């Protein structure tokens, strides 16, 4: 099996004059959880439709699990599962009938189908509610059922398009937990689109950021934080007068200094040491209570990227 579950090169798709996906090139490692981040309308869903062979690319090419999306889309869909933007569940059927239908579509033998449905519904705590009409379920339960449906036939790769969108924080956290446990247990590749950055940070081995159809960054959450955020030093204390601030600004390793209440925030260049800076502050007569080197969150990185691509 190839090291890469997804490889695309120059993948593009336009709708009239709107470029929904523009020269997208990326690779997703098999067995990993890949986060595809971007604001609304960035082209995330179009990319999933392209990778599933549901839309024809205007240009470029891609392979999914080794199959060309232009010439072997049926093979791609045979080996993948998907929870798209709408869960796509049949409200007039029970939860079990929904899964039974998709189990039949994937040609799971009857005994295996029943065992698998029970195993997955028990895993997400919905087995007791299997005979309810889906229309009576909450949003969180429906999304869980959507995830179960996507994993039913043990696909090698699953596409999840904003699986926690519209859920309350408790339901979203529960779904995330189930998703992480199931993907690890099943050993599958997960291609996850989201604009929930803490979700991506918690679940994903690698993330790509897309804006207006264009890829603007790709890497692990740690790599993106390192690449995209200036190192920062925060000193909590008192006596941070103008002389302290001026003294710090004069140092070559300091990029910017600002005072926020009793907190002195110092942006420094990569590799800058904390001790000389703290020493200078103390020598200038300030009192120091706490020194921290906060890490930028993925959200900070994302916002920076959005600002950069705006400019």
């Amino acid at each position, binding site marked *: 099996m190839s090291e890469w579950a997804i490889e695309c090169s120059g993948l593009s798709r336009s709708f009239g004059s709107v470029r929904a996906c523009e020269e997208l090139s990326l690779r997703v490692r098999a067995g990993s959880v890949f986060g595809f981040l971007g604001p609304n309308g960035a082209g995330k869903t179009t990319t999933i439709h392209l990778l599933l062979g549901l839309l024809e690319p205007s240009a470029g090419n891609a392979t999914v699990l080794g199959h060309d999306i232009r010439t072997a889309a049926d093979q791609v*869909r045979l080996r993948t599962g998907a929870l798209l933007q709408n869960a796509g569940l049949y409200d007039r059927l029970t939860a079990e009938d929904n899964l039974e239908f998709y189990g*039949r579509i994937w040609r799971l033998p009857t005994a295996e189908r029943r065992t698998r449905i029970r195993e997955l519904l028990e895993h997400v705590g919905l087995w007791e509610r299997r005979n309810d009409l889906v229309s009576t379920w909450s949003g969180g339960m429906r999304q869980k059922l959507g995830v179960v449906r996507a994993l039913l036939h043990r696909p090698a790769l699953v596409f999840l398009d904003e699986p926690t969108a519209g859920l309350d924080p408790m339901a979203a956290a529960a779904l995330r937990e189930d998703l992480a446990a199931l993907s690890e247990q099943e050993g599958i590749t997960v291609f996850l689109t989201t604009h929930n950055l803490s979700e991506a940070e918690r679940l994903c081995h690698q993330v790509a950021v897309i804006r207006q159809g264009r890829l603007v960054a790709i890497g692990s959450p740690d790599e993106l934080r390192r690449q995209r955020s200036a190192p920062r030093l925060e000193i909590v204390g008192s006596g941070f007068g103008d002389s302290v601030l001026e003294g710090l600004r004069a140092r070559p390793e300091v990029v910017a200094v600002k005072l926020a209440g009793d907190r002195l925030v110092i942006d420094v260049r990569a590799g800058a040491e904390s001790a000389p800076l703290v020493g200078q502050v103390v020598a200038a007569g300030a009192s120091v209570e706490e020194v921290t080197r906060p890490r930028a969150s993925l959200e900070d990185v994302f916002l920076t990227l959005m600002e950069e691509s705006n400019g």
Partner: protein
Amino acid sequence: MASAGSTTLGDILTIAWKEWKEYLIQRGNLRGGVVGLAIVLGVFGIMVPYQSGAGWVEQPLSIVYWAWLPLFMVIGVIADSFAGERERHTLEALLATRLTDRAILLGKVFAAAIYGWGFTLLAVTLGLITVNLAHGQGRLLMYPPLVAIAIAFVGLLAALLAAAAGVLVSLRAKSVRQAAQTLSIAVMILLFVPVFGIQALPPEVQARLLSTGASLSAEGLAVGAVVLLLVVDAVLLATAMARFQRSRLLAG
């Protein structure tokens, strides 16, 4: 490994299984669906034959009635086939599966046609029982063999006609309501245009048409109807298959 043909047949039956479940539960629950169907069955399978008496099985015109019933039944469910899936956001998930375009389309057509035809056969049987019980007077009232065969064939082909035309309309409609309205208008045109059209003709033309009709044999009429329906069904199915493409449905 299953052959492509058997795989497609299995997939068609899978789609049909889901469609039939939805037909029965479309009024919110299984009991509501079954009661609704039982009422329709009571009207068309018991009440109308009971009121018609022995002539119900003796007049070949009943073929027209049994051709109309499957049309009526299929139109009631087929508008929902694609427009409903799109409206309820289930179509995208279905298209993202391994099913071929052909299996999805034929599954929908097959489900609706068999539903309409099966219901018609049930109504035919109930009608025969009703007429024999109420008007038999000790003798067996039965359709002439040719009429019985024609009822079965014409019923199936009429159901197929409604299903294929309905799928075509539903594929293009923006909503179930729009699809249902379009189909209702089409059925009205199909039923009323020939009736009013003939009445609008000059009396001598009407008389000539009537005499030509009277000179035709029942066998000839039945075979002609079957051939005509077969051709129309094939054309509609081929058009629907040509129009049903995943990328068009999502991009549109």
